[in-house]
């Protein structure tokens, strides 16, 4: 069943081969896998890694840590004040020194959908690889890795109705074949043989995808993720996106009725999926989150693990309403009532 799960998930993102689907703990581990298995051996002083300022910390910190080891440079592409990617700046920063470009497909703060396909094309024109952080896209919009032409795509189970502790790294087979293992242990080896003569072990790696899956796999997690994928497929990802866009449009319209609420991000809702960042005048985002919590409404507060983007917005923190397939317009009405109650207080 575990391998069936891999097959199912491969088809869900339209991978050519299920060997391109590596089970990991989540998006963070997937990106770290690329950083250490590919980056550690392929990035050196003089090379450049291109990252946008809207990235989640998990698509910044691994590269920052590695740059201190290998001495390469990280270039940060600008984000416009409305939270959209500054494509001109991103594209202008590519050079022959660029070895990999890393970009969120959808921002976890603003919900802006980036044209990752466009950036992948430019990356490849410069001989660079493209890593797409799909943590916020795979659960919410149709994603086709062949169409995107991403070299790597990372995503997490817990953001798409699956459990925590399971996620996926998709990688093009030819790249994964060339990469060294991420972690060592059982499962990821073909043979470990001890030579009495040399007093050493000689080790050969297992085939893909198991080369990257050291130790006892998270079998339950993989199977549960498959069931989540089946459920999403029954609804259809285009329908998921349509529902979220409708809710986002409705939420933005209703939240604009609140005079003390400031909304952030692009007003072009066609560029967004189900996330609305905001603040309430006179209250910290944490106060707003706990106020909503009192009414059984869960929102996120703080930096959302994206401090550089908050610096772009000149914000110390923000509250974030987010929607998925199980949310309704009635829940948004209730949420707006609560916001109005905060305003009245």
């Amino acid at each position: 069943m575990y391998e069936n799960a891999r097959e199912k998930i491969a088809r869900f993102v339209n991978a050519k081969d299920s060997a391109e689907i590596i089970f990991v703990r989540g998006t963070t581990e997937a990106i770290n896998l690329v950083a250490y298995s590919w980056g550690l051996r392929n990035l050196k002083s003089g090379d450049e890694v291109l990252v946008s300022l809207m990235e989640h910390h998990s698509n910044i910190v691994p590269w920052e840590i590695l740059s201190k080891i290998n001495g390469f440079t990280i270039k940060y592409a600008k984000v416009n004040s409305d939270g959209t990617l500054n494509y001109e700046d991103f594209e202008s920063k590519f050079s022959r020194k660029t070895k990999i470009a890393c970009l969120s497909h959808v921002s976890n703060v603003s919900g802006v959908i980036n044209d990752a396909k466009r950036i992948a094309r430019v990356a490849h024109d410069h001989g660079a690889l493209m890593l797409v952080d799909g943590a916020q896209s795979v659960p919410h919009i149709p994603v086709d890795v062949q169409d995107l032409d991403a070299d790597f795509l990372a995503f997490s189970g817990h953001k798409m109705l699956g459990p925590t502790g399971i996620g996926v790294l998709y990688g093009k087979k030819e790249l994964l074949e060339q990469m060294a293992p991420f972690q060592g242990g059982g499962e990821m080896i073909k043979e470990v043989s001890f030579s009495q003569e040399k007093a050493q072990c000689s080790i050969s790696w297992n085939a893909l995808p198991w080369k990257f899956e050291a130790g006892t796999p998270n079998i339950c997690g993989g199977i549960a993720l498959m069931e989540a994928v089946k459920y999403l497929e029954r609804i259809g990802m285009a329908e998921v996106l349509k529902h979220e866009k409708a809710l986002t449009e409705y939420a933005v319209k209703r939240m604009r009725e609140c005079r003390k609420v400031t909304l952030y991000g692009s007003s072009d809702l066609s560029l967004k999926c189900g996330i609305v960042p905001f603040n309430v005048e006179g209250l910290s985002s944490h106060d707003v989150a706990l106020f909503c919590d009192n009414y059984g409404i869960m929102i996120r507060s703080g930096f959302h693990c994206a401090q550089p983007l908050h610096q772009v917005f000149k914000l110390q923190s923000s509250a974030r309403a987010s929607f998925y397939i199980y949310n309704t317009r009635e829940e948004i009405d209730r949420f707006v009532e609560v916001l109005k109650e905060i305003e009245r207080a």
Partner: protein
Amino acid sequence: MPVVEDYVARIEGTCGDEKGAVVTFKYDKKDEAIARISKKATLKSSIAGIITEFVFQDISFRVFSSGKAIFKGVKNREALNEILSDLLL
């Protein structure tokens, strides 16, 4: 002898400029915890009966009727534990 842990289920750090901590009181002890805080701390303001702002030892904090509190500007976890100890015990 009662200890802070009798009342507090979890303490989490917050991020942003309001850097502080969210204290979650144990569900079955939250009303008692809030009552004890109300007796010892000075009431500053109340918002819709849901958020109550207090001051204690020059530290301003907000208590939510759901059983959570946000402390801001507390130096570190040890200092927070001391304040909670003074408030709750």
